[in-house]
């Protein structure tokens, strides 16, 4: 077993610097690497590019990095729910690249799987396709999209072991598995770091080969964005 376990978030984030490109898992506030985000705020790394489906809310998730003006550029599919984000974007302080959600996921997966690019029908005929190569296959038009290149991928899993194997829970899975191994270094924070051998190999969602560092996270807030109940 190749040991990926590190003591804590401080040790896990060794080598993280300003001007780097990060991938962060999560959909809305669901399945975001909370411990890592808190540490990034503390370290005050600046001018970073963040690839993340959303940008958090004003006072939680990536919104914390935005408030602190640490982000130079966001690559996301949906950025509503965040006033500070909108303000920085409209004033030109923040560069934003909006990407269709399925394309965003596939640009991660392509990086993970060693594909430099792929064709997708999403965005054809819209401003998303401007300046990009297009091509017809069987009478339908497609846009060429390239794989992401990132320095660190920060993911959050439910369970994991020192071998780096990961198991996700519910819809907190989302982009997390697609980002594992899609950057130079993948760091996983887990709710429960279990002894090696306790995860059934049949149940592993992401094999440890895609993960370089793993740590036991603490104090998850798991904030709910839209608490909706049945009457």
């Amino acid at each position, binding site marked *: 077993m190749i040991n990926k376990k590190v003591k804590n978030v401080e040790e896990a984030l060794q080598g993280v610097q300003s001007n780097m490109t990060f991938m962060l898992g999560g*959909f*809305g*506030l*669901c*399945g975001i690497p909370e411990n890592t985000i808190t540490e990034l705020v503390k370290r005050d790394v600046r001018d970073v590019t963040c690839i993340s*489906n959303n940008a958090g809310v004003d006072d939680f998730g990536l919104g914390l990095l935005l408030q602190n003006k640490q982000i130079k550029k966001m690559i*996301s*599919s*949906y*950025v*509503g*729910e965040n006033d500070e984000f*909108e303000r920085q*974007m*409209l004033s030109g302080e923040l560069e*934003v690249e*909006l990407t*269709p*959600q*399925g*394309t*965003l*996921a*596939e640009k*991660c*997966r392509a990086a993970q799987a060693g594909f430099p690019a792929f064709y*997708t*029908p*999403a*965005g*054809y*005929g*819209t*401003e*998303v396709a401007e300046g990009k190569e297009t091509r017809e296959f069987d009478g339908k038009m497609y846009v060429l999209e390239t794989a992401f290149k990132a320095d660190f991928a920060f993911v959050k899993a*439910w369970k994991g072991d020192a071998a780096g194997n990961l198991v*996700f*829970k*519910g*819809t*907190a*899975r*989302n*982009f*997390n*598995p*697609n980002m594992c191994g899609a950057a130079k270094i993948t760091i996983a924070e887990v709710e429960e770091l279990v002894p090696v051998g306790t995860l059934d190999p049949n149940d592993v*969602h992401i094999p440890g080969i895609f993960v370089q560092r793993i740590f036991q996270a603490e104090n998850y807030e*798991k*904030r*709910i*964005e*839209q*608490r*909706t*109940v*049945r009457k």
Partner: protein
Amino acid sequence: MALNKNGIAQRIAQEVQDGSYVNLGIGIPTMVANYVRTDIEVEFQSENGVLGMGPFPFEGEEDADIINAGKQTITTLPGASFFDSSLSFAMIRGKHVDLTILGAMEVAENGDIANWKIPGKMVKGMGGAMDLVASAENIIVAMMHTNKLGEPKLLKQCSLPLTGVGCVKKVVTNLAVLEVKNNQFHLLERAPGVSVEEIQKVTAGTLIVNGEIPEMILS
């Protein structure tokens, strides 16, 4: 009388076929699930990674790790599954999802749709909408017939940045059910008590009216 949002959802629910996988967008489309016949089998997909979505949870049973694409807490039904974003869009792009129901700011008579951006005003992003409209075999738009200023949303050509081209097949509004084909809107049904003239007046795109147009039947 024009329908309210629940009425639109109720009418669209009649389009949902037995044995189909359906993706519901945010807003009126989400409400469609409330009106689907209970004697047919339908599975709802949410692009953040769940198939077999159930109703909202009872108070106290919310799980922060189980949400829909609108970030609302949800439940799952027996037979449900969770998956990652890439696989979720493989279902969508690969045409495994049969029906997509989503909202729109504008629809053009050639089937173009705009629903993600108002330049200089609102830039929230497209989320999964561009993937959905580029791939789905069957796309139904749920929306009000006019915007807040009373201006038509069914146009000759979209004025807002596009989400997808030539993809919308059907539109259900508070006033009418329309089919989009041959670069025209074909009026299929009227909301109860709404006249063809009233619909014509607030439709900017080419409207084809063939014979008697029946009223929608909402049980």
